[in-house]
């Protein structure tokens, strides 16, 4: 009997070729995109799961805050890790620190290959005791136990050594330090919240240009990403409680009250953490939920399509059902037949879906900015997802025709007294509405997320981000002769202004401690978001002054003058911008006075509100420490010439170091990669949803037209024009789609308004967004159903009336 069912299934597929094609393609596209999203979600959820002790690994983070101003640092002081282990051995099994001098890149050289490497960290030798990153070459137990040994990634190995065996080879670090390769990481097949190409033995630092006292006992600077492996059975909350006490013992008295240490589970860093100084940009759990919702919606659309088309097609087989019933088939037999047929179609769709997933994965990987790779994919998820989604759709979809077609009495069908399909019209109408509600929702979601991304990208930040060239100089000698470099740069006609700063404006900031006049008596320093900069800072970034003046050489403003923003004026309790001018604001560098007030601007990404902010100048003596980046304002449309000029000057000063640069606007845009990713993913998946829904509508329109063939013929026979017939048929679909659009509007509004609420700077959803979505859906509906309706209207009536 099974063979009989399959035979008839295959012959039916062949007989109704267009239906079959639409049905199978719609389903396989649905299943494959559903699976692609699951792969993406699984990837997002898999971060840091490679470590066998991942449940016991926590990152030590530091929150320092007073009156809503402060920072949430992903890194802590050098001594934090070792002190925790020393004080609480019963809680702490091990700790590891990662340190990178807080510079964006490090110069690495091997023979003729030289580059600036961003992913280099010094790490304690316990690195391999806590983390389980696999090595392709070398022994993890001893790889980092000698100073100046380094373990490199497979991509770094390929870059510097090509086919040579890297073990034992020497790399030159920052022009002078020799690092010996002791291991090579295996190719990355896992997701980790931080990237690394070079892990250098931490013990090297004791023999480098770094004050040993800082490593040993500086509790003010937070340069180390520190991870702790808890003892079995110990809870992080208990340790946090003890750390509160430790803080009061070890942190400087001046701010220990404001410090809070938290332990972050390593598995939660990627999706839940959004701290200052993260090692890499993280994901966002909200987007994972959103992707999951989109995945489900795509699957629902595909399932609806399949059910709709299959039930429509089944209706065409009423005669066969009637005959089978007359011969003695009972409901169960017929149900079985439909079930097997549907499953058979699903299996074909499943096979196609596998191919589609493999073909589309690189594309998804690019869109979602991940390193998903088919060869490293967890195939069990792929297989389970594709097969189960296909079979579930097949089973659910077979229920309707199995129930409905098996229910009627054979006499009715065989005598032609009922026309199948009429009764199920309403059911199919509801499914079409549901399909287009989802499509409308996805379209609006796309428009809003793309709109918000465009807004974030193009918003006025209150400073000029265009034509700004950034050159990192943190770990170069240029820090020490910045002034002469600046003079050289300014000689170029296309370079308008040059300044230096400790963090790139708009991306990051620091906190420094200051003593406002009001707190002088108590000698109570407070932590304020700030940036140490050089002369010409406000000029380079075109930050408008609202009171006072900017830094001037002739005024000797180094560690004497301070500029604040308007929010800071209010924060410090002054009524007017002018009122704060000349007021004392003591820093660790000495007595300083406020010389100017700038208009509030977004010194960090638009994900955060503008808070009080200080722009300060270090003393001439400590200037080298804070001059980590140069910002160059270049003449409009002369970016390339400016770049060439800067490069030439760079090599004049640093002939042995690769020139590194980027344009600020590009860097800032990257801060909104999550919104971009969301926009792209929803965008592409909306297109998929529309395609699937339209495939269904195309098939369904053919069916509806077939069903109404006689009616159309009669109308034509009595003189109705072709145009009226087309309009009559279109009306049916437009009504369904129109209802769907109306339903999708409030749902989209509710969801997207809530999403937008999470942004301090956001767009407002205009009526245009809804109308655009409606227009697109109506246009596509028109194109989709026109083919069959026009064909039906042009058909000669006698054909149907015979």
């Amino acid at each position, binding site marked *: *009997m099974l063979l*009989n069912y399959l*035979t*008839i299934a295959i*012959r*039916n597929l062949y*007989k109704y070729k267009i239906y079959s094609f639409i049905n199978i393609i719609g389903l396989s596209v649905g299943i494959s995109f559903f699976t692609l999203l699951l792969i993406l979600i699984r990837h997002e959820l898999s971060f840091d799961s490679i470590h066998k002790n991942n449940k016991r690994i926590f990152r030590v983070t530091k929150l320092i805050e007073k009156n809503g101003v402060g920072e949430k640092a992903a890194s802590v002081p050098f001594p934090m890790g070792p002190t925790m282990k020393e004080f609480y051995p019963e809680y702490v099994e091990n700790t590891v620190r990662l340190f990178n001098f807080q510079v964006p890149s490090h110069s690495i050289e091997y023979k003729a290959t030289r580059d600036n490497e961003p992913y280099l960290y010094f790490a304690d030798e316990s690195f391999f005791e806590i983390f389980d990153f696999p090595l392709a070459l070398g022994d993890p137990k001893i790889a980092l136990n000698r100073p100046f040994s380094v373990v490199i990634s497979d991509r770094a190995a390929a870059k510097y050594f090509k086919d040579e065996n890297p073990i034992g080879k020497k790399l030159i670090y920052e022009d002078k330090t020799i690092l010996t390769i002791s291991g090579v990481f295996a190719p990355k097949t896992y997701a980790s919240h931080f990237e690394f190409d070079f892990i250098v033995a931490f013990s090297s630092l004791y023999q480098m240009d770094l004050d040993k006292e800082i490593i040993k006992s500086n509790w003010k600077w937070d340069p180390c990403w520190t991870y702790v492996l808890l003892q079995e059975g110990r809870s992080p909350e208990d340790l946090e409680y003890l750390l509160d006490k430790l803080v009061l013992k070890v942190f400087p008295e001046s701010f220990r009250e404001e410090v809070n240490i938290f332990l972050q589970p390593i598995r939660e860093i990627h999706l839940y953490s959004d701290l200052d100084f993260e090692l890499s940009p993280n994901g966002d759990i909200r987007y994972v939920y959103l992707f999951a919702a989109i995945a489900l919606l795509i699957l629902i659309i595909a399932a609806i399509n399949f059910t709709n088309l299959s039930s429509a097609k089944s209706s065409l087989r009423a*005669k*066969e059902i*009637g*005959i*089978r*019933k*007359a*011969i*003695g*088939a*009972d*409901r*169960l*037999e017929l149900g079985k037949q439909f079930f097997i047929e549907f499953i058979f179609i699903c299996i074909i769709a499943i096979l196609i879906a596998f191919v589609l997933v493999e073909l589309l994965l690189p594309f998804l990987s690019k869109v979602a900015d991940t390193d998903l790779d088919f060869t490293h994919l967890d195939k069990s998820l792929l297989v389970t997802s594709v097969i189960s989604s296909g079979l579930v759709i097949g089973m659910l979809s077979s229920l309707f025709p199995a129930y409905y077609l098996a229910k009627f*009495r*054979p*006499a*009715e069908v*065989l*005598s032609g007294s009922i026309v199948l399909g009429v009764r199920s019209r309403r059911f199919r109408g509801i499914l079409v509405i549901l399909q287009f509600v989802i499509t409308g929702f996805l379209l609006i979601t796309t428009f809003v997320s793309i709109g918000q991304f465009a807004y974030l990208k193009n918003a006025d930040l209150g400073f000029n981000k265009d034509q700004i060239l950034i050159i990192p100089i943190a770990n170069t000698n240029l820090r020490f002769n910045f002034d002469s470099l600046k003079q050289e740069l300014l000689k170029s006609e296309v370079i308008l202004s040059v300044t230096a700063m400790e963090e790139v404006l708009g991306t990051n900031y620091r906190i420094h401690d200051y003593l406002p006049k009001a707190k002088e008596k108590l000698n109570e320093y407070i932590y304020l978001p700030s940036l140490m900069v050089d002369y010409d800072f406000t000029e380079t970034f075109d930050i408008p002054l609202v009171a006072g003046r900017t830094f001037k050489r002739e005024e000797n403003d180094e560690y004497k003058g301070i500029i604040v923003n308007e929010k800071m004026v209010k924060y410090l309790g002054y009524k007017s911008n002018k009122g704060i001018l000349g007021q004392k604001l003591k820093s660790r560098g000495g007595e300083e006075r406020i010389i100017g007030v700038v208009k509030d601007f977004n010194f960090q990404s638009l994900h955060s509100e503008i808070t009080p902010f200080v722009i300060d100048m270090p003393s001439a003596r400590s200037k080298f420490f804070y001059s980590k980046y140069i910002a160059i304002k270049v003449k409009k449309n002369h970016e390339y010439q400016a770049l060439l000029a800067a490069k030439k000057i760079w090599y004049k000063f640093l002939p042995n170091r690769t020139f590194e640069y980027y344009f600020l606007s590009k860097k800032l845009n990257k801060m909104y990669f999550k919104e971009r990713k969301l926009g792209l993913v929803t965008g592409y998946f909306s297109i998929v949803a529309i395609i699937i829904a339209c495939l269904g509508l195309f098939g369904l329109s053919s069916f509806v037209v077939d069903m109404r063939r006689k009616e159309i013929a009669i109308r034509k026979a009595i003189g109705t024009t072709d145009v009226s017939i087309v309009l009559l048929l279109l009306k049916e679909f437009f009504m369904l789609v129109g209802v769907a659009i109306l339903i999708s509007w409030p749902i989209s509004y509710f969801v997207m308004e809530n999403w937008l609420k999470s942004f301090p700077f956001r767009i407002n959803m205009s009526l245009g967004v809804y109308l655009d979505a409606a227009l697109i859906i109506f246009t596509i509906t028109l194109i989709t159903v026109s083919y069959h309706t026009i064909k039906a209207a042009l058909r000669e009536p006698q054909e149907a009336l015979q």
Partner: protein
Amino acid sequence: MLIQLKNVDKVYSNFGIDTVALSNINLNIKEGEFISIMGPSGCGKTSLLNIIGLLDVPTSGQLYFKNEEVAKASSKKRAYLRRNNIGFVFQSFNLIDELTVYENIQLPLMYLKIPSAERKKRVDEIMERLQVAHKRKYFPQQLSGGQQQRVAVARAVVGKPRLILADEPTGNLDSARGQEVMELLVQLSEMGTTVIMVTHSSAAAEYSQRVIHLFDGQLVTENLTKISNP
């Protein structure tokens, strides 16, 4: 008695309008009989045949099949009775277009769960007998009307039913092909199969032993001998 109808009514309701198809039908059919049902269009012939064939249920009255009351039997029970006892021949042949001649004929045997070897033997036999063996791999639309009806008859009898119900079996055939089909039905009747046939054709009715006339849903006459047109 193979079939007994007692006070059978059939009323169709459509949008609140009742149409009486059969009214107070009383009829006894013995095993091995060959009966024709005649009457003008819309008199209820097909409704009666459908009720006897358990394709439809009476609105009221009793229906006995092999002395078992089946008027209110479940659809599963009725399917079971049809499968094991009844073969249908329709005016429009009602073959499944997607199945070949062989596959159409073997379908009832599959529902009867007859093993494959036995099935093949029986289908081959019946195809030989009805002279359609050379068309075994053909699809219905590739056959002439007469051939299609022979296939339909083959399908109706392959399960060796006790009862054959034929609804205008010669209606779509020319006289020569019609005659062939009637002779087949007579042969089956002679071999002990009960045959009930709905027909407009008095020529076809002449092959039967008894003719029942229906008018406006009521049984008006029963002739036990050969008849002429009413």
